[in-house]
């Protein structure tokens, strides 16, 4: 027997974007069904590094990032838990003069956008962060940034959405979606038939086929950022660490475990899941031991990797479809979606309610790839390099 649902909005993908959008729309009074092929928040939203960081984002993302920035301290009210969010600050290290110059240039570029970046020279860095090994030229500190626990936050958004009255259908992959005269028709799982006025495509690394089904192919491919976790150590790392040029990022949770990333894993035979490579894990471990003397005798107890969708220009797609009315895309966060996702959720809800958002999202239009020539992409290369290292 099939299960028929008729909703204002159907959301494909229960990651942090989909579930925060579901919650925001439900609170506006829309009826919503949230569909996930597995558990909500079990993919990149739940298994990313956990950086809650504005610093380092391209200027066009900062307004959205600032909107999300206001949401993070309110998680407890919003979803019932604080998600282990810590406003620790985000310290981006420069290991060469060239990297320091690049940090300075970035700080100048975003000076008016409210990040309050503080550039720190080598001597001062050693004084204030003596637990970082000597060979660092300088750094840029964004005191308002921090980190949180993705495996808790993402699931809690979905849980809160369900509690607010969203129909959350897990293990219900969408097999077919099409535009009808009065909206959309979706078939999902073994027996769900859904009619909806709006469809949100927030399917992360799996969003490509849905966009393509509506005539909007995108340069989206899967990446597998991978992390290592140490045994609990005395707390020494009081700030979320990133590095200009990439290669390492690290944070320490209250319990004492350090989480360190900077390499990529490989997909498994079952391609929804991935695993760090042995050599990649050893590389991250060695880098961590070299940069943080406190970790020299530590053990790695756990690795993990997640499947994330990355766009060719590392900016997400957010906004209305150019081919299909009432279809909205929000995917391709390219390893940097965790912090902005709750803000994206609010934006999506505004799009459904008002047809527009008060936060500028023009830079994330899906047709930018059709408009962009190879030449202008090449012009963007230096910019891309700077965004290495994801969260």
């Amino acid at each position, binding site marked *: 027997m099939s299960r028929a649902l008729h909703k204002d909005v159907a959301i494909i993908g229960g990651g942090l974007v989909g579930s925060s959008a579901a919650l925001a729309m439900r609170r506006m009074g829309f009826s919503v069904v949230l569909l996930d092929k597995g558990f909500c928040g079990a993919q990149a939203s739940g298994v990313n590094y956990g950086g809650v960081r504005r610093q380092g984002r391209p200027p066009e993302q900062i307004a959205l990032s600032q909107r999300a920035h206001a949401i993070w301290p309110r998680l407890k009210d919003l979803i019932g838990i604080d998600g282990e969010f810590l406003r620790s600050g985000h310290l981006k290290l420069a290991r060469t003069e060239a990297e320091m110059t690049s940090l300075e240039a970035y700080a100048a570029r975003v000076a008016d956008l409210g990040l309050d970046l503080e550039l720190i020279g080598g001597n001062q860095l050693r004084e204030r962060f003596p637990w970082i090994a000597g060979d660092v030229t300088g750094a840029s500190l964004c005191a308002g940034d921090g980190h949180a626990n993705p495996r808790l936050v993402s699931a809690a958004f979905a849980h809160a959405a369900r509690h607010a009255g969203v129909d959350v259908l897990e293990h219900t992959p969408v097999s077919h979606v099409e535009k009808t005269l009065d909206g959309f028709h979706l078939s999902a799982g073994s027996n769900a038939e859904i009619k909806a006025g709006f469809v949100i495509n927030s399917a992360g690394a799996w969003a490509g086929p849905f966009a393509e089904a509506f005539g909007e192919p995108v340069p989206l491919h899967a990446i597998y950022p991978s992390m290592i976790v140490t045994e609990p150590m005395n707390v020494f790392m009081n700030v979320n660490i990133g590095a200009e040029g990439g290669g390492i990022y690290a944070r320490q949770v209250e319990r004492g475990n350090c989480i360190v990333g900077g390499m990529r894993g*490989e997909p498994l035979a079952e391609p929804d*899941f991935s*695993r*760090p490579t*042995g050599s990649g894990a*050893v590389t991250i*471990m060695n880098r961590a031991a070299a940069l943080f003397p406190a970790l020299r005798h*530590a053990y*790695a107890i756990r690795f993990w990797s997640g499947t994330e969708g990355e766009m060719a220009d590392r900016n997400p797609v957010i906004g209305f479809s150019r081919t299909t009315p009432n279809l909205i895309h929000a995917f391709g966060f390219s390893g940097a979606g965790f912090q902005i996702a709750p803000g994206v959720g609010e934006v999506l809800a505004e799009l459904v309610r008002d047809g527009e958002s008060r936060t500028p999202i023009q830079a994330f239009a899906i047709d930018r790839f059709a408009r962009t020539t190879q030449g202008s992409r090449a012009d963007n290369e230096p910019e891309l390099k700077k965004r290495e290292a994801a969260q």
Partner: protein
Amino acid sequence: MSDAIRPLIVGAGPAGIRAAQTLVNAGVRPVVIDEAPSSGGQIYRQRLVPDERSAKDLYGSEAAKAIALHETFAQIRDRIDYLPGTLVWNLHDKAVDAVTGQRTRRIAFSHLILATGATDRVLPVPGWTLPGVFTLGGSQIALKSQGCAIGDKVVFLGSGPLLYVVAWQYVKAGANVAAVLDTAPFSAKFHLLRGLFAQPSVVLRGFRYAAELMAHGVAVRFGVQPARIDGTTRVEGIVWRERGKEHRLACDAVGYGFSLRSETQLADLAGCRFTFDTRDRAWRPERDGAGRTSVSGVYIAGDGAGIAGADAAELAGERAGLALLDDAGLPADHARIGVLERKLASIQHFRDILESAFPFPEAWATSIADDVTLCRCEEIAVGDARAAARDQGISELNRLKALTRVGMGRCQGRMCASAAVEVLASTCGRSPDAVGRLRAQPPVKPIPLEVAAEGEAA
């Protein structure tokens, strides 16, 4: 021809050694990696430092088997590449990552025989994290490898054949064993009478252990429900219920375990298909009678493929070795294969009877108190897991891990997952097989951050 294959055997216990011997006899030179400093596995573990104890002292009735196995290993030692004290922490794409001290290297293989053995199945009881509480296997290791007892007055608790073996070994070594507390009812032991026909020597040996324990004044109790292990900074006593009545005994150490649990992480990383074994109440890699897993070129032998004991492990190791030779197009003794398979089938039949004499304490999951630690690495209580399962509608083990941290610590679920499965299943009203199993991730065990990576071994 034999140069064309490069088999890797993980584990140098009874299964691993017999597998290696089988390959060596066919002119193949396998790599043998073992976590222990010397060969023999858990059951035929060798002393760390030579002492005056004889093989008979160390291995009791199994001394002849131990000597034979150690001799075999000495004979093939020069015809294998042996890496003792080495942990295989990752497996991917026909190669393993193995760490020896601070050095890790990637070792490619053409075929893989997993002989990774088993560890105790641990079910938390109140007080189980007190200093002075050991697993049965841990108690045995202390005795075998270092010649020391876990305490001056020891109580052994739990279920499974190992309970009596370890208690008997302690008594033989001159340790003071105050009691053996068997959670299975005495009536379950009648199953052993059926076992008399299948493997009379094993059953009689078990009876002899029990009789000698009692003759030495050890209290042997059946149908015991553990109430708690007492103590403030370490073990001071143990309290249990028996036919509704509470008993207490002073002791300074407790060795306990509830049968064994296969070490299956490498089979999991290799991508082997798993099946739920209702008898062992655990997931184990699927295998055919020869030890072939669902992954071509990957074989599994011994207790790592389901609990069957050391004798079966020797046979299964040899059988897997022959299967590997056969699959590689090398001559394999088919008459011998027939003999091995018949013997293995007979042990398997007996094992089913044996396990029914040591049934799983089904009531544990519902009776264990909320405040007892479930996951000791991450310090998560039974009640935390129950509350998360109830409040957040969790009915799958990886989800429980993600939302509560159970199984996320140093042991990566090796110690706590069996118990977590029972708690989750009982809370959400499912059977243990229906809540799934933890997804495998390297490292199999913790490894130092400062490991130095070496190039691929030749």
